[in-house]
């Protein structure tokens, strides 16, 4: 029988949830690193015992933790993220240039084949790579050469929050940055190009179709179709069929096309999930109803999934990294809220159970099948 392990990062520590393959009854272990913000805790696909966690604090800065026994014990690894060469400057709120300053690691993405190879997306936006399990980090600084001087932080900070590694081509990497856009490398991170054609930011940018500056909230890919990506933008749900060379909108009949996470079903490449949020001014679900929306047609046509989710007086948010999919035959869907609930659907979103009610605000969710 399979064991399901859910890695939860919160504002006040990490939690590890486990259940059997039916995913109804959950055991909660934690908090790990109590009192610290865990922006992301994740596992290496090639070694399920290898976990990494980004642990940070406004007082004490950034710490990176690594476990080689599935989270029973942890060791700190290198937390020095030094920008390559002279860091340079980016656009600041008042239109002046501002030096790049490291603040925290938002996202950790281990390689699919090597547990010691791991990428880190950081704020101020940059991508780092470690080839030795986090003992040292090097910046892939070609990314910031793609008009980095024009990138400008949004209200949530200028963070590199999404890293997608192409399963069929180890040289191809996609990243997304708040208020900068999406970018692609085809040479293992040495050089980059913006992939924002088709995005429109009418109310956010002076040039609505600018090459960089779009506030991408997250992107997702199904491993069987690495040229098709889905994007939840600040507003608009988007799709590309050519690896990001151009995007088109697939928001369709969503009640709001503002939101943070987006995910693809494990076995149905055209089934995608979003969590609509009322607006950029109201970071809670429309009408106080927590609804996951699922499209089985790769976008445009969406259905609300509500069975087991609160349908009145619900004013939580679901953050960009707080949504995950498992690989069991009956695909599991998971998300955490700013109210500290973790919801689980063992049947592709048709029915939901609450795995845990009262955690601190959830920042990230990842799931493993053991």
């Amino acid at each position: 029988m399979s064991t399901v392990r859910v890695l939860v990062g919160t504002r006040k520590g990490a939690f590890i949830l486990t259940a059997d393959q039916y995913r109804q009854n959950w055991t909660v272990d934690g908090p790990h690193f109590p009192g610290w913000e865990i922006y992301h805790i994740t596992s290496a696909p090639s070694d399920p015992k290898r976990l990494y966690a980004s642990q940070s604090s406004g007082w004490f800065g950034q710490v990176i933790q690594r476990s080689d026994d599935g989270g029973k014990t942890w060791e700190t690894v290198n937390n020095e993220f030094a920008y390559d060469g002279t860091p340079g400057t980016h656009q600041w709120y008042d239109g002046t240039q501002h030096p790049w300053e490291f603040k925290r690691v938002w996202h950790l993405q281990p390689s699919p084949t090597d547990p010691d190879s791991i990428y880190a997306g950081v704020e101020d936006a940059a991508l780092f790579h470690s080839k030795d399990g986090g003992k040292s980090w090097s910046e892939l600084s070609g990314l910031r050469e793609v008009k980095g001087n024009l990138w400008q932080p949004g209200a949530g900070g200028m963070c590199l929050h999404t890293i997608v590694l192409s399963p069929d081509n180890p040289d191809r990497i996609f990243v997304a940055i708040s208020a900068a856009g999406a970018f692609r490398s085809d040479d293992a991170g040495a050089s980059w190009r913006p992939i924002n054609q088709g995005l429109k930011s009418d109310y956010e940018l002076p040039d609505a179709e600018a090459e960089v500056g779009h506030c991408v909230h997250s992107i997702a890919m199904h491993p069987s179709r690495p040229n098709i990506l889905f994007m939840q933008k600040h507003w608009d749900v988007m799709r590309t069929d050519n690896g990001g060379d151009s995007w088109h909108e697939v928001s369709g009949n969503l009640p709001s096309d503002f939101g943070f996470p987006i995910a693809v079903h494990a076995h149905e490449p055209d089934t995608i999930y979003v969590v609509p949020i009322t607006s950029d001014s109201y970071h809670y679900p429309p009408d106080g109803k927590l609804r996951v929306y699922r499209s089985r047609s790769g976008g445009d046509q969406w259905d609300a999934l509500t069975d087991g989710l609160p349908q009145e007086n619900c004013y939580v948010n679901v953050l960009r990294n707080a949504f995950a999919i498992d690989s069991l035959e009956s695909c599991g869907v998971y998300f955490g809220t700013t109210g500290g609930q973790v919801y689980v659907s063992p049947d592709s979103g048709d029915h939901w159970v609450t795995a845990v009610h009262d955690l601190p605000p959830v920042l990230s969710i990842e799931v493993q099948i053991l």
Partner: protein
Amino acid sequence: MIIRVSLPTHLRTLAQVTGTITLDVPEPVTQQAILDLLESAYPMLRGTIRDSTSKERRPFIRFFACGEDLSHQPPESPLPGEVTSGIEPFRIIGAMAGG
């Protein structure tokens, strides 16, 4: 000189220590000498008290000893005799926050 160093709760947890830490710091005993030795003995603390590269104190970290705030003293300034003699600990604390 045997110096006692007091860490805030989260850094004690990170360093896997309880109570105050004792360090044998060569003279002259300064903030910089204490922090250099502390980070050498407990490498998991690198970057949590001061910036790894610039060695500047993190904004919400304060240094206290003998009832005085030493946070703005030059890092190479000698510390009070009560600290260098081990009578008083060199206190590293997180700044007050909240409402």
